[in-house]
């Protein structure tokens, strides 16, 4: 089981969209995936038209069994239109609601999240965490659990600041993880989102990113209205518009992730 976290301490950079599409893409390719909505907004939850209760808080604090909390995402919502029910993979979701905010104050040790998901290590291939932009103690618990992090970022100054903050916090956890014999968290990639290729500002900023992170910078996701359509249709781009270039862009996310994961192992 691999645990992957989407992180950037700046809001509105596309964490949820990248998270839902990576999770859906892996599931379509036959993996058993859990998408955990760790953001009190619960937007990853409504991205698939699911109800917000019971949620992450129930799982972690109230110790509700996974059977009560995990919700299967209807294949119509994430899978390719013609193959909706043919997939071997499964996409399950841990919803989130306002209570997620209170998790941090109610857990006694930083390993709670890791312990909980380790229960499923043989049943599940991927756990994807979609996090909130505001750092909290819940993030610490996720830092202790995650194997790798993907940083979506806009090619704009404030997003870079959020990225820098996130990387600093990640580094702060390295010694703690070493203390407990955990591998260092792998940076799986930096995903430039909402990219306007024709503007000089975005071009310059992308170049700056590539200078710093080199190979780690994934192919940019251009800004497209279809992402908004996807959100109101409560589907993925794979099920809504599988033949568009945007769907190709989304697949490239999954490809690049799989590439990094295999390279890692």
């Amino acid at each position, binding site marked *: 089981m691999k645990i992957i976290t989407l992180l950037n301490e700046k809001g509105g950079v596309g964490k949820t969209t990248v998270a839902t599409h990576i999770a859906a893409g892996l599931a379509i390719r036959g993996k058993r995936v859990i998408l955990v909505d760790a953001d009190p907004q619960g937007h990853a939850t409504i991205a698939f038209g699911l*109800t917000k209760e019971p949620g992450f808080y129930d799982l972690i604090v109230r*110790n509700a*069994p*996974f059977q009560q909390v995990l919700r299967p995402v209807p294949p119509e919502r994430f899978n390719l239109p013609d193959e909706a029910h043919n997939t071997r993979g*499964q996409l399950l979701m841990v919803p989130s609601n306002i209570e997620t905010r209170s998790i941090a104050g109610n857990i006694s040790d930083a390993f709670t999240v890791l312990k909980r998901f380790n229960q499923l290590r043989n049943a599940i291939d991927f756990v994807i965490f979609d996090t909130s932009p505001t750092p909290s103690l819940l993030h610490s618990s996720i830092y202790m659990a995650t194997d790798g992090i993907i940083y979506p970022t806009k090619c704009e100054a404030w997003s870079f600041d959020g990225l820098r903050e996130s990387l600093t916090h990640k580094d702060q956890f390295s010694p703690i993880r070493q203390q407990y014999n955990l591998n260092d968290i792998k940076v799986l990639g930096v995903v430039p989102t909402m990219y306007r290729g024709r503007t000089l500002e975005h071009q310059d900023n992308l170049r700056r990113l590539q200078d710093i992170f080199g190979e780690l910078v994934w192919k940019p996701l251009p800004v497209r209205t279809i992402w908004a359509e996807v959100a109101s249709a409560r589907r993925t781009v794979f099920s809504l518009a599988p*033949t568009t270039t945007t769907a190709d862009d989304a697949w490239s996310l999954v490809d690049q992730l799989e590439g990094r994961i295999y390279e890692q192992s």
Partner: protein
Amino acid sequence: MSSRERRRKIQDEENLLYANPNTLDPKTADAIGFGLGELAMEIAAADSEYQAIEAINIQDIQPNAMQPRHSVPHDLTDIYPLTPDNIVDIFERWIIEVQLEKSQNDFDVTNYLLGETTERGERAEKDESDGSSGIALAASTKEDALMKLVDLAASIRRDGLSNPISLVQDGDRYEIETGERRWLAYHMLYWRFGDGDARPDGSRVNWSRIPARLVNRVDVWRQASENNARDNLNAISRARQLAVLLMDLHGWQNFTAYKECENEQAFYAQVADGARWRIPRGQGERLLNAMGMTEASQLRQYRALLRLPEELWRKGDDENLSEGELRKMKSALATVTRVTKSSAGKRKKDVVGRLAVDAGQWRKRLRKEISSTTVDTRPKLRRLIEGEIRQLLRLMTELDESEATVHSA
């Protein structure tokens, strides 16, 4: 496909999805499991492993000091704080005190736990078959509380523990989230039968270990629902419960920790001020449900109990007085205090204060006390005080009558 076409297509698909609720409604989807088959079973297996019940040594378990329900009378916990080492002392003293009260020494816990009927047992059974709760009121409250615990222990010995207690691990010790009385019952059984008791059905049990489920932290809401599901809480316990739920809603960091408070009431009284610690918007319904109440006015009444004079608080808890009784006593006590303050010296006030909480002998002695009080001569004030006294006497009469009907029943 154009955007317009896509929108139309989605609309059609949505209609189709909604027309077939099995594929959309999350609850139904869960119920049919979406054909998860094998995966669903693996998840269920992981769950059952996680929720596994462990047998924990009763000596390693500490009660949760904030638990609203108190299972042991104050007099006893004043002498022996409720820790695993003191429990046998508490049991022994408890039994002695009950025997002294009854001026008899025939009470044998072991016999009772073995299921051999004692005179007391017969009476309990008889009362139970009458459907009256006479024994609870007729017997002293200390005896009543003890017998409830003995009954619980006897039923655990006979039928086993069907509902494991829940514990929070703290280093190599554990704190009780729910199940303090069940834990005390195990102590009682261990005290009488040790670790190799042969149960009526022939199985052998080691009473030093209690089945428990480990949870991450004490959830006061889970505690509340457990408390409501069991034996009714008395008014003071309900007030405590309301206080901890309010503290949970407002954030524990705003309050002084239990251990640092002067006494237990002082801890709960931190949220007594309803204007400062309002019920947060949107949480009223949740709070009412957790308290098992229907009216917001009840929340106010129970919150007011947090400010009871300490003596009344303890008396109310030990004798299971109702919220209404406590409210009357509080106002009576306040009146008496005021009356005496305006004329008499400190000594007299003390006398009345002490008498006021002794409900049984109230009326007679209060009359005497009040008639001997020289009321302030200023007419307006005098009328006011006399009015208070009249009301007080009316309340006393009511209280006496209601007590009399309970006794005669």
